């Protein structure tokens, strides 16, 4: 039986809001521990990175399933990654630093993990703003594709941001880095395979 795409789309839409629901529930019931602001920050950062990797996994899923539906979810999941990254940034600016712009500026200039974090946010912002179909149309397919290629450096820098942030236990950022690398390698292998088959023809 073929599942209608509409059903997949709505299921995924509900899924992307679940982490936010969990966070709000725990914030309201005291489930975030002794340092809730730090917990919110970590949690939103984790999910921003996870959704970015999920969005980047859609092309490999299409390659393996030979189905078109994964690509039709790309905009929603990319925007979800941006949403969590923006919430992560807002938490840092509003709740953590409470608009202490001097300290925030010092952080951006001096702390390399924050510098690359800001670069990631900027890239995701540009990609989010240019995600509507009519803007893509106005840009032209080639320019739009070139611009949205920036999602790869964003993914790499997001992993680096996490890696540079941790104190000693690098296990988690390494896992994210490996997943990101695998997603890139699948694309490279696929491109190479296509080239070979074209030559073969």
């Amino acid at each position, binding site marked *: 039986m073929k599942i209608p795409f509409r059903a997949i789309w709505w299921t995924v839409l509900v899924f992307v809001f679940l982490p936010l629901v969990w966070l709000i529930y725990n914030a*309201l*019931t*005291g489930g975030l521990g002794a340092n809730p602001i730090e917990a919110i920050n970590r949690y939103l950062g984790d999910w921003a990175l996870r959704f970015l990797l999920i969005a980047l996994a859609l092309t490999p899923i299409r390659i393996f399933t030979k189905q078109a539906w994964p690509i039709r979810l790309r905009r929603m999941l990319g925007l979800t990654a941006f949403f969590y990254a923006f919430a992560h940034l807002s938490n840092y600016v509003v709740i953590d630093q409470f608009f*202490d712009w001097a300290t925030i500026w010092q952080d951006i200039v001096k702390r390399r993990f924050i510098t690359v974090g800001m670069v990631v946010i900027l890239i995701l912002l540009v990609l989010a703003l240019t995600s509507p179909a009519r803007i893509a149309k106005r840009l032209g397919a080639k320019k739009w594709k070139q611009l949205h290629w920036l999602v790869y450096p964003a993914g790499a820098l997001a992993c680096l941001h996490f890696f540079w942030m941790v104190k*000693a236990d690098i296990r988690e950022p390494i896992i994210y880095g490996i997943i990101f690398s695998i997603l890139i390698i699948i694309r490279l292998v696929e491109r190479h395979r296509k080239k070979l088959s074209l030559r073969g023809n």
Partner: protein
Amino acid sequence: MLIKVKKQSDLSENDVTPERLFKARRKFLNIGAASITGAALSGIAGGIFASPTPTKAAGAQLGTTKWAGSTDETPTDFESITTYNNFYEFGTSKEAPRFNAEGFVTSPWTVEVSGLAKNTGTFDVWDLIDKNKLEERIYRHRCVETWSMVVPWVGIPLADIVKRLEPQTSAKYIAFKTLHDPERMPGQERAVLQWPYVEGLRLDEAMNPLALLVVGVYGQELPPQNGAPIRLVVPWKYGFKGIKSIVKIEFSENEPPTSWNISAPGEYGFYANVNPNVSHPRWSQAKERRIGEFLKRKTLMFNGYSDEVASLYSNMDLEKYF
């Protein structure tokens, strides 16, 4: 005659709010938050600062005398102190130690004293620490990660123990080691840090009256996640200097290696004095978040204990010896 000079941190003596009052307040906040989830804003305010479920099984009560120099700032609640822990021997997250340390056996417990001292040998922890001389001292506690607490510790000045052990004149440093036993400390199964955890002080730092060997918190024996049965507390230094679950003390002529310094020498120095003017390479140390508070507060030089300890470092470049 002993003349007591009033110092900056010698604020007026205030009794610690009883633990049950804190628990009652927390419970009230939790109930409050649950009942007003509809009123989102006030709900968030109440809920965010409410604590997770309290830890069970209170430790044995300890008899103490109250030290006159305690800060009169409001102590952090017992739940936060015992559920938000950096103790990598029991896992690298803040939440892990209280679960992984549950059932950690701390009796019997011996401490081996070695090196340049007259009274070396192996001591039962309760031979080293005289239960009749315990003091309750409320200290500010500042983590290198920029969070802070106010903790009512129970312990004995390190200086008293050092004097009893009679270090030789050639001894310039004191070093400490944590238990190394991956079967009992599951975090040691991974080499996140070089095990066992080691820390140390210059001997004159160790002799400063503020340095404390701690066996309890909130009037009861330390829970294992806080470093039972015996740990170090050096309130003018970042928390990682406060080595937990000590099994060895050694007097030496040379500066001993210290765990975080081995792990990242550019980020964590031997001295690790709280200093708002010297940044950690990856974050500023100018401010801190007191657990339970919303806005950050300014970090004080030597964590507010300048009057007592600044003279230890009078001729030192604190940017270099961070």
